[in-house]
């Protein structure tokens, strides 16, 4: 039933990971200039907060867009197990040649969660610290931000 209101479910998750912002495409001086402390050779870490928003019909029998247990286990398997207490640069194949900025992390998380079968992924928001956050809603997702 198409109604005048669109409802989304939002869920927050946490993971801790390390990264280093550095690229072979730049000289050491340029890396230091562009990435500052984030280019320090042994990396550093953050407590990331991930917000996942999904949309869909609210099932009248359950009152839910998606069963939370199913969403939680999907996010746990696709994101938390892969990133939590890992080095993004060393342990995640997607960041082998891509700088693990939180912009790129958002895109990678979006790709991993897009196939959630029970609801439509609307956007992901990643908070790197309480002062920095990043959002991604897919290639055509400008309107969903």
């Amino acid at each position, binding site marked *: 039933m*198409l109604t*005048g*209101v669109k*409802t989304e*479910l939002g869920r*927050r998750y946490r993971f801790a990971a390390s990264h280093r912002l550095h690229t072979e495409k730049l000289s050491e001086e340029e890396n230091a200039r562009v990435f500052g402390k984030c280019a320090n050779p042994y990396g550093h870490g953050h407590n990331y907060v991930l917000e996942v928003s999904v949309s869909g019909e609210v099932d009248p029998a359950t*009152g*839910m867009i998606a069963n939370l247990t199913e969403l939680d286990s999907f996010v746990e398997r696709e994101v938390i197990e892969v990133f939590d207490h890992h080095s993004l640069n060393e342990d995640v194949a997607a960041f082998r040649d891509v700088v693990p900025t939180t912009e790129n992390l958002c895109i990678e998380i979006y790709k991993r969660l897009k196939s959630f079968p029970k609801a439509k992924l609307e956007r992901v928001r990643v908070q790197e610290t309480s002062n920095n956050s990043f959002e991604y809603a897919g290639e055509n997702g400008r309107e969903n931000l």
Partner: protein
Amino acid sequence: MVLITRKIEFSASHLYHNPAFSAEENRRVFGKCNNPHGHGHNYTLEVTVAGEPDPVTGMVLDLKELKEILEREVMQRMDHRFLNYEVAELKGQIPTCENIARVIWELLDPKIKQGRLHRVRLYESADLFADCYRNGAAC
């Protein structure tokens, strides 16, 4: 266009139970939320209104007026209430975050005359929330 957001908090109890399900099914689908005497949350509601600031007052809408609407429509109806039994608008619905947010949207939308209701976000806890937007509108 400018968005302004007002936040309020209320406390309420609820339980999830569908009389069309068997006891086992209710337990399987709703887990602890099916405990028969209910449980409670401190809900946080964020209401966002979109509009152009009035050239004379500089306001999209008078926040005092929004505060009064929220008091009347949400606080008086839901604060310190058992949502399943005491909120008529939720009758026959499972009072999930999605459904409560939707009821709040429908209560507020016709009452907001200056600017236009843009988003209702209801947090059941810091880690779980529901958002309502006008269908077709850019979020």
